[in-house]
């Protein structure tokens, strides 16, 4: 942890020139105030989440009775209810498969397109860019009827691959849009040098340009992951087979049922169940993530 902390805390390669001391006392006050701001912020972030965690172990009666009272005992049955009633396990697996597939495909297609749009001039480039941005602007739920028939025609309705394609298509404009500026910023000389060396377009892209755009790719991948993980309307319409439900669908139908039977304990437990795995993945990878972002940035 400490190595990471150091990397985060200090802008790397700090020169050893001694900074001018700008008034020790005032400096301490400002530092203290800053520290206080961050502590308050941390409390604001954590309080609702910890409260949710605590509530997930209470019975519905206890939740209604008092917001702060600790659970009388750990009502683990909330988790059992959420798990069995909502079938969260299966939906979770479906979500992982769909999101992983769509994320890989989106990043591949999006980065290739952004690369071309950023670095090559060709007639119609402006129009293509505008059309890409246009895709970001329309409410998805007005488009799902035609989309339904497109997937039906391709025999991909109610299948996970169909969902992967739909997810990819709707994440594509954002990905291209976001990556464009990263590719625009990359030094052109490197690519030129590579092509003079006789590297093919493919090799230039995958072995030279893509690694250089890694910080941007990391940021977009994180944004996309959450966007895809939260995707709700597309699966509702395009994936009505309960076997293939993804987590958001499962949660919605569960929230609806839990709301009707007023099982708030299970509702909170279900919420925690959807958060924790993602949080764990983040905590495991965040060092690498931060590392790659920082490393990319320093170049």
């Amino acid at each position, binding site marked *: 942890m400490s190595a990471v902390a150091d990397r985060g805390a200090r*802008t790397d390669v*700090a020169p050893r020139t001694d900074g001018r001391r700008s008034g020790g006392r005032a400096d301490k006050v400002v530092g203290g105030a800053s520290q206080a701001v961050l502590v308050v912020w941390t409390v604001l972030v954590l309080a609702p989440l910890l409260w949710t965690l605590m509530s997930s172990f209470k019975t519905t009666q206890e939740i209604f009775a008092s917001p702060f009272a600790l659970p009388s005992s750990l009502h683990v049955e909330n988790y059992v209810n959420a798990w069995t009633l909502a079938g969260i396990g299966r939906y979770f697996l479906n979500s992982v498969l769909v999101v992983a597939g769509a994320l890989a495909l989106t990043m591949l297609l999006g980065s290739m397109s952004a690369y071309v749009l950023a670095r090559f001039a060709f007639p119609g480039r402006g129009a293509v860019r505008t059309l890409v941005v246009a*895709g970001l602007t329309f409410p998805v739920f007005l*488009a799902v009827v035609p989309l339904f028939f497109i997937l039906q025609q391709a025999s991909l309705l109610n299948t996970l691959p169909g969902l992967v*394609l739909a997810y990819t298509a709707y994440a*594509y404009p954002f990905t291209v849009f976001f990556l464009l500026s*990263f590719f625009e910023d990359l030094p052109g000389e490197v690519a030129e040098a590579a092509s003079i060396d006789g590297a093919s377009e493919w090799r230039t892209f995958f072995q030279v340009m893509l690694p250089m755009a890694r910080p941007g790719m990391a940021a977009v991948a994180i944004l996309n992951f959450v966007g895809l993980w939260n995707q709700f309307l597309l699966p509702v319409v395009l994936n009505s087979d309960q076997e293939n439900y993804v987590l958001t669908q499962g949660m919605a139908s569960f929230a609806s049922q839990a709301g009707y039977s007023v099982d708030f304990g299970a509702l909170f437990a279900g919420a925690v169940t959807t958060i924790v795995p993602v949080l764990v993945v983040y905590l495991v990878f965040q060092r690498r993530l931060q590392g790659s972002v*920082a490393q990319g*940035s320093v170049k």
Partner: protein
Amino acid sequence: MVVFLGLPFAFYVVMVLYPFTQATYYSLTAWTGFSAEQPFVGLGNYARLAGDARFLTALGNSLTLLVVVPALVMVASFALACLLTFGGSTAGSVKGLRGTAFYRVVSFFPYVVPAIVIGIIWAQVYDPSGGLLNGVLTGVGLDRFTDFPWLGDVDTAMAATIAVIVWAFVGFYMVLFVASIQGIDPELFEAARLDGAGRVRSALSIALPGIAGSVRTAYVYMGILALDAFVYLQALNPNGGPDSSTLVVTQQIFSTAFSQGQFGLACAMGVVLAVVTLLFVGAVFGVARLLGVRGGARA
């Protein structure tokens, strides 16, 4: 280039642009959304929207979100990012506050919580009698907040809603900006400090221009999100809030399309929303260009 841009773009056209084009056509019809007849009404739907008080209220609220949410998120996340990167003691090398890594990890937490779950959690936090917020406020002696309906009072519903969206995104952009600031040559900070610049001046004259590209992209993304905001609003105030004070365009589109059976009219609202979004994106890029911002994460 065909493989890099042509194929992905064709795929995007089929899956995204084509359905949107269809929806645009629907906006010229009086289609109910469920029948086969689509009586053509020309621009009739648009004329109706111009005199539709409820739609105009929703549009006004959406524009409020568009103006306020990205601004708050950007300012807060930039300020926090500055504290973490060079807000620390001015003695020695430029560095952030102690515990940077911890704050950065914690701030990211809300981002891994699905939007629907964020809505569910905060609806509970705001509950007048059993919620965390009033529990804390009355706990410290502010008795006038006993049973105060944060989401049910015209004066506070919108602010409370905005707070939730800001809560959900500040951490992520903070992490993003931290990475970008770390990409700035540290010698610039050292030099500024030798010139006697304080933290605020360093932030405004070095950090901000240094990451302007990131801010621009983030601003666009937050703006688009604020114009949608559907999931949050449905969870917090599915009826559009007291006196429709939190009714947004996407909610109005949704109920017009599905419970009122006026899909054509809903599509017209969608087109209006798309135009607003495009104007917004254009405006952000225009302003950025005037300010001399170019490229992505790094200047």
